[in-house]
Structures are given as C-alpha cells and as structure tokens.
C-alpha cells in the first residue's frame, strides 16, 4: 500500500506534466490544421483589367501563395441575365478579370491591409477586397483561444513542477540514509541512485502509458461524439504514436534530473 502510494505520488505529477506537453502537441496540431483550413477557405478578391499570373503577383508580395482566376463567363452570365447577345458581347469585351488570391498562411488583419495596398499599386488592378471585418473577428477569436490555452498549459506545467519537486524531497528523506550508508562504503553516485532510477523509470513508463491511454480515449471515443465538427472530422489530431516516444523521452529526462537532484542533495558533506 505504502509502495503504491509512493509510486502514485510521482506518477500523478509526472502525468500532469506529460498531459501539459501532450496538450501542447495536440493544440499545435489542431491550431495549425485549423489555421490551414481557415487559410484555404479565405481568398482576397482582385479585379483587374489585365490578366494576372501567380509568379508575377508573388513578386509583388511574397505572402501570396496562388492566384486563381474566376470564370468570367459565369460572372457575365449572372450580370447579363435577360439581355440581348449583342449587349452580352459588349459587356464581355469590357468585363475585367476576377481573381481569388490565396495566401501562404493565416495572416493578421494588418498583414492583409499591407497586401491589399501592395496589390493596389499594380497598374491595371482596379479593386482589391480583403473582407477585413469578417476575417478580423475570426482571427481575433482564434488568437484569444490560443492565448488562453497557452496560459492554461503554463499553469498546469508550473503546478506539476512544484509537485515533482515536493516528491523529490519526499524521496530524499526516504532514501537519504541508504544513500549515505552506501557512500560510506565507497559506492559511486550512479550505484547509490540505482534503485531510485529503477523506481523512477518504471513510474515514467507508467505515466506515459496512462497519458497515452487518456489521449487514445479522446481520439477514439470522445472525438466521435464531439460537437466540434473539426475534431470529429480529424480525430487523428488528438493522438499520434510519435507522441508516445516524445513523452517517454521527456519523462526520462524529468526522471534523470529528479534522481540526480536527490542523489546530489544526499551527498556526504565533509565535516569540519
């Protein structure tokens, strides 16, 4: 019972830290994927007298990714509904070219305005529409969510570090005597802390597995019933097998630092 309690006292804060890290990974995947989705759905509308090609437009502003021409006939058909053929021909002749301009990433409103201004300087471009109001509210909401989650993760991490330090102090008390006896008989630090390493590495493995289990549950159960369509359609964002290795590696690093801390604090200090 005592042993289980001792393990849990290290596993739980370690798990909290790993959950924090996994949150960062998942959150980064979700945000970059969502950002990509927002980016793909968004386009600047450009009206031009001349035809525009991607390399030329990119040379004006490197934040521009592609230029997609809109179908002039379709636009003309909508505009000229019910008109005579001669009138349609005349309109087609004077109808400018319409383009959707896609960007390389999900930029801020300030960037969009800069891009618009750069495009407006091009001879032949008649109008540039960035749909700023709608874009700005989406972008602001996105940034706010990002910031709140980052604060949450930092706080979770800080609390976890405090818990791990507390547990290290408990370990130190529990193992100090044994380590000091071993030191009196000439044991090097690695041997003195050997048992701690064994316990801590086991705990690190257990914490990683539990953490993985939690996120696999999110991926396979929670995501499917989630009200968030984006998550529902992309459950893989919630867990990758590569996360396991990363988390285990991180857990090992935390364990090594913890054990060396305890071993160092238990080191004999010559008297006198």
């Amino acid at each position, binding site marked *: 019972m005592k042993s289980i309690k001792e393990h849990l006292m290290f596993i739980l804060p370690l798990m909290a830290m790993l959950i924090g890290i996994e949150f960062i990974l998942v959150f980064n995947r979700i945000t970059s994927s969502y950002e990509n989705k927002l980016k793909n759905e968004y386009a600047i509308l450009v009206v031009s007298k001349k035809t525009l090609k991607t390399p030329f437009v990119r040379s004006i502003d490197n934040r521009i990714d592609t230029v997609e021409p809109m179908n002039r006939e379709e636009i003309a058909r909508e505009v000229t509904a019910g008109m005579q053929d001669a009138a349609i021909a005349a309109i087609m002749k004077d109808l400018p070219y319409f383009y959707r301009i896609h960007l390389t990433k999900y930029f801020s409103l300030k960037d969009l305005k800069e891009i618009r201004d750069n495009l407006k300087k091009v001879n032949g471009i008649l109008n540039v529409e960035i749909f700023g109001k709608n874009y700005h509210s989406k972008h602001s909401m996105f940034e706010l969510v990002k910031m709140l989650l980052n604060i949450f993760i930092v706080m979770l991490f800080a609390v976890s570090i405090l818990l791990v330090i507390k547990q290290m102090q408990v370990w130190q008390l529990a193992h100090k*005597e*044994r380590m000091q006896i071993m030191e009196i*008989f*000439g044991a*090097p630090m690695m041997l003195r802390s050997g048992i701690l390493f064994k316990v801590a590495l086991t705990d690190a493995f257990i914490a990683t597995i539990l953490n993985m289990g939690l996120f696999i549950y999110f991926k396979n159960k929670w995501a499917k019933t989630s009200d968030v369509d984006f998550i529902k359609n992309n459950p893989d964002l919630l867990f990758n097998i590569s996360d396991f290795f990363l988390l285990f590696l991180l857990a090992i690093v935390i364990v090594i630092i913890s054990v060396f801390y305890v071993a160092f604090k238990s080191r004999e200090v010559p008297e006198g």
Partner: protein
Amino acid sequence: MANVISANSLTLAYDKGKTVVINDATFTIEQGEFVFITGPSGSGKSTLLKSMYGQIKPYKGKLSVGGFDMNRIKRNQLLQLRRNMGIVFQDYKLINEWTVEKNVVLPLIITGYSLDVQKVQAEKLLAHVKLSEHAHKYPLELSGGEQQRVGVARALSKNPFLILADEPTGNLDEFSSGVVWDLLENACDQLNATVVVVTHKIPTIFNIPYRHFIIENGGVHEVH
C-alpha cells in the same frame, strides 16, 4: 612493516577551526596492528575515526590513510579507499530495506562482484557470525547484537586492509560483545587487517597483542 595510518601534527576541528577537537597529534599505525582508542565522552575519539575514512578533513597537519593524503584526497579516490576498508558503527548503519544477506555483501555489490560470488561470500560470512538462519530476514527483525554481527560481517566481506570500528559493542550485551571482539581479533590475526577500534572500555579478556591510544584534552597519547 608499512604504515597504514600516519598522522603528523594532526589537528581536527569543527566550525572552521573554532572548535578544536584533536590538537597536534602525531602517531603511526602499521599493517596488521590492533589499536584501541579510548577517552572520555566528547574527547574526539569518533572524530579521529571519522578523519580516517574521510568524513572530516584535517584542519591542520597531515593525515595519510592507505597511502592517500587525506588533506588532498579527491572524491573518487576517497570512494576507492573506502571500498577497501571495513567500517563498523555503534548504530550498525544497516540498510533496513535490504535483507541481512544483501547487507553483508554491500561492499561486494559496490565493487561489482557477480551474484554467485556474493552468494558464496554471504553464506561464508553469515556462518562465521552465526547468523546463517537469518540470511533472508531484514535488519529490524534481529536483535541489536545480531545486527552488529551483520555489521561486522559486512565490514569483513571484502577482506579489507583496514577495519575502523566506532564503539562496536556500545549497545550490546556481554555475549554479543564477546562475539564481536572475537570477530575483530580474527580479522587482525588471521587476515592481517589493521583494526582501529574506538571504545569506552577495552575488553578484559583480549587474546592478541594490541596498542592503546588515549585521547585527553585534544592530545593523542599512546599508553605503554
């Protein structure tokens, strides 16, 4: 014979020299000698012993143990020196989470001997200290006298060149004290180990020749 311990104008002190415990002591102890160090409580007997295994550094003067200059000994050299010593404590200093058998072979574990060697040596030593039937017990299941015999067995497990014992019979009854003295006598007599024992009282029956140092007012004097 070679000097195992050599002190030259040795001064030991605490609080950065504010409390001098041993003052200007000069003596040598040779290989295979049995030495008693006595003196009143608080005279500095244990401090002198601690200096021999590097727990306290000389404040002034020189101390050499097993060829190592204890003033300048590096940490890894100190661990190396300790691996070839046997140390017995009044409070036994056994690892309570380990079995008696494992405690006995601690010096072999530290040196990296195989499990087979450890097992053979543990059986031999536990038979020697008459504790074979307690091999798989834990220290707290034993009496004080039995725990101290485990402590002595541990000190002997690697055939050390030097055994340091701090009040080894201080907490023991007459029978257990007799067993511990026999073990230390044998270590000196048969293994040619140097044995330095700090004690309040030299046993009345002692079967091998010994030297006796007494500590008084910080000075270390040999009693002839």
